[in-house]
């Protein structure tokens, strides 16, 4: 085993930089940095490649998030687990919830030891159920560097490498600011590339285009719960800042000032979607008292940037809002996890954070950022440690053969290259509209999926993109692939459960309390898996 301070070996060849490492982590958000730190502290040499800048990149860095931090008290833990089981459609796994609560408690306390400035309340207690994204991710970058991790910034991965047996053995990508490419040969890869937000401009999420899903699918990976992929966040109509919690104190009105019936941030967001199909909707945070207003200012300063910079007092004046799709970022679908160490269905590939399914702790409905943050921290830690163990068990890998797994946009083919911007628009036209993705119905989903499948046939045979367009080419293809697994799965769930609501099947059907696995590129497929046993004394709906 390599020593803790050992770094990945670097070689330079014309037009490319190459590394040999034990573990490659793709993505530098919370899941990726926890994975990198865990792998390094278990003796692995680690390279972390981020599409943007590790520390500012992704949904967490730009925002603030609650975190599912619950003291190890039996009653509190029971309440934390039971509290959202009905909302998630009883698809959670109690064993995983308990593990994540334990791991998150340790991880958050570790952050405090590392110097994260948790607030102290008037009673003198350190309050640890919320993280400020910029502060958190700046700290995690520093910890990764201190652990000896080699960080490649502005280095989006394009495709995985496979060994002769089909195990994942590294990846290649671009170095945008150097204008060249990178290759990392690794004994294990952690996919921590986040979810897919379809370039909707929900805060910090435009780097999250499902790239890791596409790469993993090309290596044969499976997905799960992809039908739970349609959360929409409330934002000012003109802006990017999504902080749905605060809209719990809002009154929502139509253009004429009348209140939108049934509209609420929690439990009434579909009423907002229906109203937005008719015309503009406005919000005013007039239910917040003075103390709440002050707490909001100090809880999430960035929430007020759109208002302060346009001269709106959000507590006294109404402002137009919209719903921005958060896709699988706040959905619960992603790479299927096959073991407690966050292995996927492909040897050598582990998954963490939003790249992985969060069904195990969230079922079919996210607990907001809180559960996702806990999952990122926990799955990051486990996947990093498991990748280090896997690398150690593999030992020396002389004479290992490598092949590139990438397909669409990367191979010489007969047909013309496609325009990634046009493809992005075409995919957004299928996944943004509330009447297709939010308020679902079989006929509309079937028609949309047919259009998406036709788009795929159009791009699958396209010739390799050049260096200037390959990143966008791959991003748009990843969005397209993600949308197809989403709707293929959504059509197979002929009921309403979790965030998946079908106009044509408005009820939850006990016979469908099961997971939906999906996958495939040229031909997509789905299959069913049994859900975990219901907890004792819990009656399903």
């Amino acid at each position, binding site marked *: 085993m390599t020593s803790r301070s050992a770094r990945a070996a670097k070689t330079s060849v014309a037009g490319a930089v190459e590394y040999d490492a034990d573990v490659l982590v793709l993505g530098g958000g919370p899941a990726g940095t926890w994975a990198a730190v865990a792998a390094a502290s278990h003796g692995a040499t680690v390279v972390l490649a981020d*599409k*943007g*800048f590790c*520390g*500012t*990149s*992704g949904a967490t*860095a*730009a925002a*603030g998030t*609650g975190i599912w931090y619950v003291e190890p008290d039996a009653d509190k833990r029971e309440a934390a687990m039971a509290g959202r089981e009905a909302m998630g459609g009883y698809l959670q796994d109690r064993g995983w919830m308990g593990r994540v609560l334990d791991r998150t408690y340790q991880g958050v306390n570790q952050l405090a030891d590392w110097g994260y*400035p*948790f*607030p*102290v*309340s008037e009673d003198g207690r350190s*309050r640890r*159920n*919320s993280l*400020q994204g*910029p*502060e958190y991710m700046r700290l995690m970058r520093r910890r990764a560097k201190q652990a000896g991790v080699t960080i490649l*910034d*502005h280095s989006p991965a394009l495709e995985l490498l496979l060994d002769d047996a089909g195990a994942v053995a590294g990846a290649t990508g671009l170095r*945008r*600011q150097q204008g060249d490419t990178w290759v990392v040969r690794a004994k294990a890869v952690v996919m921590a590339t986040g979810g897919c937000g379809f370039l909707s*401009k929900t*805060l*910090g*999420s*435009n*780097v999250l285009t499902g790239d890791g899903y596409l790469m993993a699918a090309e290596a044969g990976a499976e997905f799960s719960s992809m039908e739970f992929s349609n959360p929409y966040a409330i934002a*000012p109509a*003109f*802006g*990017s*800042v999504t902080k749905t*919690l*605060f809209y719990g104190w809002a009154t929502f009105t139509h253009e004429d000032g009348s209140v939108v019936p049934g509209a609420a941030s929690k439990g009434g967001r579909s009423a907002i979607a229906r109203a937005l199909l008719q015309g503009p909707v406005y919000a005013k945070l007039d239910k917040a008292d003075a*103390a*709440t207003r*002050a*707490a*909001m200012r*100090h*809880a*999430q*300063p*960035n929430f007020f*940037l*759109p208002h*302060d*910079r*346009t001269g709106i007092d959000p507590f006294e004046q109404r402002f137009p809002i919209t719903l921005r799709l958060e896709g699988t970022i706040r959905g619960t679908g992603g790479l299927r996890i096959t073991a407690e160490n966050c292995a996927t269905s492909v040897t050598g590939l582990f998954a963490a954070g939003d790249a992985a399914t969060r069904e195990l702790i969230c079922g079919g409905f996210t607990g907001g950022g809180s559960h996702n943050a806990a999952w990122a921290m926990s799955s990051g830690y486990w996947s990093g440690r498991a990748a280090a163990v896997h690398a150690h068990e593999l030992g020396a890998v002389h004479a290992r053969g490598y092949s590139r797994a990438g397909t669409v946009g990367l191979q010489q083919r007969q047909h013309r290259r496609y325009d990634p911007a046009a493809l992005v628009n075409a995919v957004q036209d299928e996944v943004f509209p509330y009447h297709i993705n939010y308020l679902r119905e079989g006929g509309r989903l079937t028609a949309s999926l047919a259009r998406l499948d036709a788009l795929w046939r159009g791009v699958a045979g396209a010739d390799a993109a050049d260096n200037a367009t390959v990143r966008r080419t791959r991003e748009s293809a990843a969005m397209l692939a993600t949308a197809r697994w989403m709707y293929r799965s959504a059509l197979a769930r002929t009921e309403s459960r979790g965030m998946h609501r079908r106009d044509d099947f408005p009820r939850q059907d006990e016979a469908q309390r099961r997971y939906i696995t999906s996958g495939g590129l040229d031909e997509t497929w789905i299959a069913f898996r049994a859900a975990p046993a219901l907890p004792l004394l819990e009656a399903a709906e």
Partner: protein
Amino acid sequence: MIEVIADERCTSCNICVTVCPTNVFDKMSEGIPVIARQGDCQTCFMCELYCPEDALFVSPFADTPREIDVKAIKTNGLLGSYRRAVGWTEQTRALRSVDRTYLLLGG
């Protein structure tokens, strides 16, 4: 979207070029960096937080470029306002640990 690099404040440290997660800026061989790909800006405000000189201004309009009155945002305190609010300046360091989310979550 990012709109302003205030040239008399910018020291060409190029931190913004490094930290922007969507690679919007370009370093120049001479002079201050430029906003090279404004359309790629995701309005995440991170460049403002990392700018040690409060030289950057991100307009809250995520989809459309806007004219900014640079003189006005200097005098009304908007330049650097986000960095001060999160406690990333010397004078406001105490604000780093002022998160009151626990009051809102009722925990």
